[in-house]
């Protein structure tokens, strides 16, 4: 079974009515390297919780990997890893000083906001690309 099929089976398990053509097309347009819960939620018109369930099911079935990214105070993604403890302890961020100049600084990752995203399982990526 391809990753694409696994992903859609995960969706079907929480969407009994199945997917329409439009939703399928939109899902196929997602960047498989970085899928946020909100991407899936907005395409399927489901709740946040249901979108999480779909993606976590896809993770269990091996289609996707869950990752975490750490964000600088301005929202810029500074680094990502499969587990929070694997994020670098310090990350590099830019900020605008009082005079509007960009300056750089290093910030402890623990102090920064994290968010979850999903990525197609790289080990089976070729299969996905061929099928999709």
């Amino acid at each position: 079974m391809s990753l694409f099929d696994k992903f859609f089976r995960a969706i079907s398990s929480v969407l009994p009515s199945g997917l329409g053509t439009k939703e399928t097309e939109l899902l196929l347009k997602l960047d498989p390297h970085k899928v946020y819960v909100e991407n899936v939620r907005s395409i399927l018109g489901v709740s946040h919780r249901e979108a999480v369930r779909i993606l976590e099911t896809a993770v269990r079935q091996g289609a996707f990997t869950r990752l975490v990214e750490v964000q600088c105070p301005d929202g810029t993604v500074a680094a990502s890893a499969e587990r929070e403890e694997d994020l670098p302890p310090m990350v590099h961020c830019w900020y605008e000083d009082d005079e509007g100049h960009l300056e750089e600084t290093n910030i402890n990752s623990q102090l920064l906001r994290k968010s979850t995203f999903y990525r197609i399982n790289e080990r089976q990526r070729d299969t996905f690309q061929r099928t999709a």
Partner: protein
Amino acid sequence: MATRWYDCAVSILKKSSADLRQRLLELFPATNLRRTFVSGGTKEKVSRTAASSSDTKQLGAVADFIDKNVPFCKQHVYVFSHDGDAVLPLSITNGEMVKSDGDHALYLARIEYTVVQLDPLKYSSIDFLWPVRIELHQNYLLVRFVVLEKSIGSYFEKEVVVRGKSLSEETIMGGLLVDGTISRADLNKGFKALWHRDRIDATRIRYKEPEATVTRTMDEEKGLKQTNPEKYEELRRFPLHQSVFIPNRGFAEVGAFTADPTEGFIGFTRYFKEGATGDELIRQILSSN
């Protein structure tokens, strides 16, 4: 052309305390300080030793060091266009010319930071001598400001909050613009030429669309052109503003730098790798502009 000294050169340094001269020298890379003054010791110690004497010869050596080493510092570079009439100013706002060498001049401006010390509450201030180097090129005038220490608190034993400062880059440049012979250079062409040739890429780009100002910040500091060439093709039609670039081939020693091409601004916010400067990068931007 022979170096020409001005009376004020030694004057402003001589009138300054050893502490003030030490803070001035501490703006420069430790490696460069050790190479010129004392071969060993911390940056603080080398700077203190070099700044301690008010002997005219030593002050001359300090001025010479500053002039030669501004390109190695963290710095803000403003590029102005001129039509051939521009000359090096004899002074700048709140500052004096220290040295002139025909095509460039070094100035030192006095700047005062006012701070509030906490616990117990106490108002205080600290002065710096601020190096500014102005360079006259055929079509451009470059104004380089050495970036002053951001952590003013490191000069105080207790925690402080900066309340204000007596001088800004804008104030000094306002004084330079007043006679109307120079204007901010638009460096979009030069930057885009280097970007097109893959000499640089952008990790953060701000550009002006007809109805919006857009900022794209790349995840994990990836290069925009390398990651998303289609987006690069789209946005290169627009004027570029405050952005972060990373050097590719040939400029690795420069590291990430900031720029506002539309406003003629280039900022080097970190020390270069040893022995390097951003001068060749600037030269290529200007020659492609």
